[in-house]
């Protein structure tokens, strides 16, 4: 099977889903991303990215319980799949190995 490829923002969201583990849903992902990156992100972009990741089989979702918050709407939690984890591992390995090939140049 062809290697899954994901974009930069997708990777960020996937990383965030993995990091938040059981607590990952739209709002938490948004807040953490904004905090870490220190820039505004639109919630709709995250929704679409999550759907795309789900289509690719990198995350799976489940609904939380009904609460009185959120206008009575359920949360949709995302968890990373084994495939997603593997993809992140590959990406990480690739980047580290490339990073280590950088000659020791002083930028001072």
């Amino acid at each position: 099977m062809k290697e899954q490829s994901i974009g930069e923002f997708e990777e960020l969201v996937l990383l965030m889903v993995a990091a938040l583990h059981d607590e990952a849903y739209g709002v938490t992902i948004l807040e953490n991303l904004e905090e870490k990156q220190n820039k505004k992100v639109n919630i709709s972009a995250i929704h679409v990215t999550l759907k795309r990741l789900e289509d690719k089989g990198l995350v799976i979702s489940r609904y939380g319980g009904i609460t009185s918050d959120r206008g009575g709407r359920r949360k949709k939690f995302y968890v990373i799949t084994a495939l997603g984890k593997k993809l992140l591992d590959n990406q990480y390995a690739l980047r580290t190995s490339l990073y280590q090939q950088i000659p020791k140049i002083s930028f001072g």
Partner: protein
Amino acid sequence: MSSKQPPKYPLRFLRWFCREDYLDEIEGDLIELFEKRAEKSLIKARRRFVWDVMKSLRLRNLKKGVIMPNLFYTLSFRQSLRHIARERGYSLLNFTSLAIGALFFILFAWYAVEESSFDSFHSNRTNIYRLAFGEYLDLGPYATTSYPIGPAVRKDFPEVQFMSRFGNSGRLTVRNGDVAFFETVNSADADFFEMFDFELLQGNPETVLEAPNSVVISETLARKYFKDEDPLGKKLTIGSSGNYDSQVTGVFRDVPSNSQLQFDMVMSYSTLEKLYSWLSDLWQQMPGNYTYVALYPGTDVPGFEAKLDMIKQSYVSDIERGEYELIVTPFADVHFQEGLNRELDTKGSRSSLLMFGVIALTVLLVSVFNFVNLTSSRYLVRLREMGIRKVMGASRSGLVLQLLFQAFLVVAFSLIIACVLLVLFLPLFNDLTGKDFTPESLLQKETLVTAVVLLIVCTLGAGIVPALGITAMTPVQSLKSNKVVEAGRWKAGKSLMLIFQYAVSVLLLVGSIIIFRQLQFVESSIEGSSKTGTLVIPVNSGLAEKFDLLKSELVGHPSVLDVGASSHVPGFYGDSWPVRLSPGSDPLQTENFVITGNYLDLMSYQIVAGRQLNESLASDKQAGFIVNETCARMLGFNSPENALGQTIFFGSDELKEGKIIGIAKDFHFESFKEKIAPALFQFSPYDWMGYNFLVVQVKTSDALEVISAIEEEVGKLDQQWVVDAEFFDEHFKKFHLEEIRQGKLSTVFAVVAIILSCLGQLGLLVNGTLSRRKEIAIRKVLGARVNQLWYLMTEGYVRLFVVALIFALPLAWYLSMKWLDSFAYHISPGPWPFLVAVLVSGLILMTIVSAVTIRSATANPVNSLMDE
């Protein structure tokens, strides 16, 4: 808490477009975010919420079925094409009738745009007005004005920005070296090219007409006289006196045909003013001089018009009697307004534009009705299909959309056919209308707009009724029954459409018969009022003095039958003079003709009482008048015989007293749309009043030979003069080109509409009969004979036809009377056109009905009954 609610409408919108399975997540997250943000600032939170909703409006989040992605299923393009292809006959009928309807409508739109664009190329046109006499010395309203009025208005009224008079100096010889022709020479004031947007190719609009002896010529004339040379600064010899010889100061692009001012050559008015200083005192004379003013924007026009009375008070205070009332008319309205006396251009008539409009619209309506009829009857066949589609879950709106789309395809295709036909028939159309349309004008904004509007209107108009009708059934109804065919509402609609079709064909038949007969009348009158083979040749005063010599030379020519002369010839040039019954009495303005004794014979004007003028009688020379019937009547004589021998006085200052010795039968001056004017014939009353035209009766077969003989003779007497011979009857016909053209055009329109209406009737009848074919079969099995069946089937249609007649005949009578009234002289139609129209359309109806019914009545009943 209630203040922390997210905005209501964006939320509703989100719920409307968002797919259900995503809604929990999206709406939940949006609300949660809103609640968190609202703790800081409610306004910002609301704003962000709206923004988030908008951002969530993505293709991926859309609900299925409402929007875009489903459209292709709903329209089912391929199925529509299959339907069109399967019903080839009906589709062909549809395409033809719609295409023809659209074709005629587009052509009319073109024509109308062109007609209503009259004079619209002047950017300043809303501020330009024409000054005219509302009442001139009790002689009635005149479009012409006196010479000094224009300059006085320009001087005395600060609201006048520009003023120009426009005058006609007649047809004069124009010469550059060896190149010489007759041209109509006009004159205008210095403001002329600034006020009007006639495009100057060379020369400065502000100064071209300033200096005396300046002339501005058209592009065509520039080529004619100067070939490739630069005309600027060149000299043109105008007329034979030398007074008008002018320098070319500018060249303008040829005047477009949709302009009321038509000219090839404009001389500066200062030329005339320099020559004739007395012109500025001619307050109470009426030469052929039109005055136009441009007022500053925002001028109170009625106020300006009221102030014009000052002109009378300041300059014409010595006026003894009569009104001297000036009126202003918006320049753009002049062409379409009811004419005053001595109008400059032939009037465009809104009534014939309206007539075309009605006919074009009728053609379109008939074709759309045909479309509705045919489509709805075809839809009945698809009733079951619709039922099954509904059972399978199709929504009504989806089905309606699909049917509309199919209608759209048919209309669009027909429009394409119409455009192809348009290009093919363009030369023919140009021929009929006398316009210069090119295929390129197809790409004009107006035409494209018309086409798009047509597309939408036809699709909706023709598609929506049958589509709604057929989809209104519940699935059970449409699957089970055939009864829709007989449903009351349906039947009523169909009857109405049939009545409309019948009414239209009767109406148009009556119309075309009456138009045809009126035009025949006009054409025969033209022939009656102008003998063929009469040449009219303008001459100057020098040649006129040598008339006897010229005549004696010419009559020797074998092909010359007779030679005469006259000061005026109807349609060429006229001159109006007062005539009175006694020196102090009210004058009657009459067209004056100074003639040779044989002129009336040459023009084939008949004498109804008395005799011709005789050159050998001294009494005739000094005191003989012939008047036409109108003149005699207007002078107050109740019969031609009573007028004979009566004394009348001719002239304005130096009166000529004389007796009426003959009464001429009325003849038409120019257009048959105008009333015949009073006319008076006499031998020259004053030394200076001579002939302006040579009238020569020739054998038409040798016309060219005679013309060259005349050229030779004239050349011996005056080498400068150019012979510009024209046959009188041909010249006369030019005044009627427009009517003859319009008549032909409306006949073509009418014939097409009648054909279309027949097609429509055929479609309806075939369908009506088909839906009753089982009934016919059963009746036949039970022993009905063909003629009984025929009677049964025909009776209903005949009843509808009679109803249609009740509507159509009075309307036809009213409309045709209205049209005929626009002619001063017209036929009285009588009952015949109506009878013929009823008979013909009745015959068409009976033929179609009989053909269709007899076919089904003679068919083997088993076939109809076995079906299904």
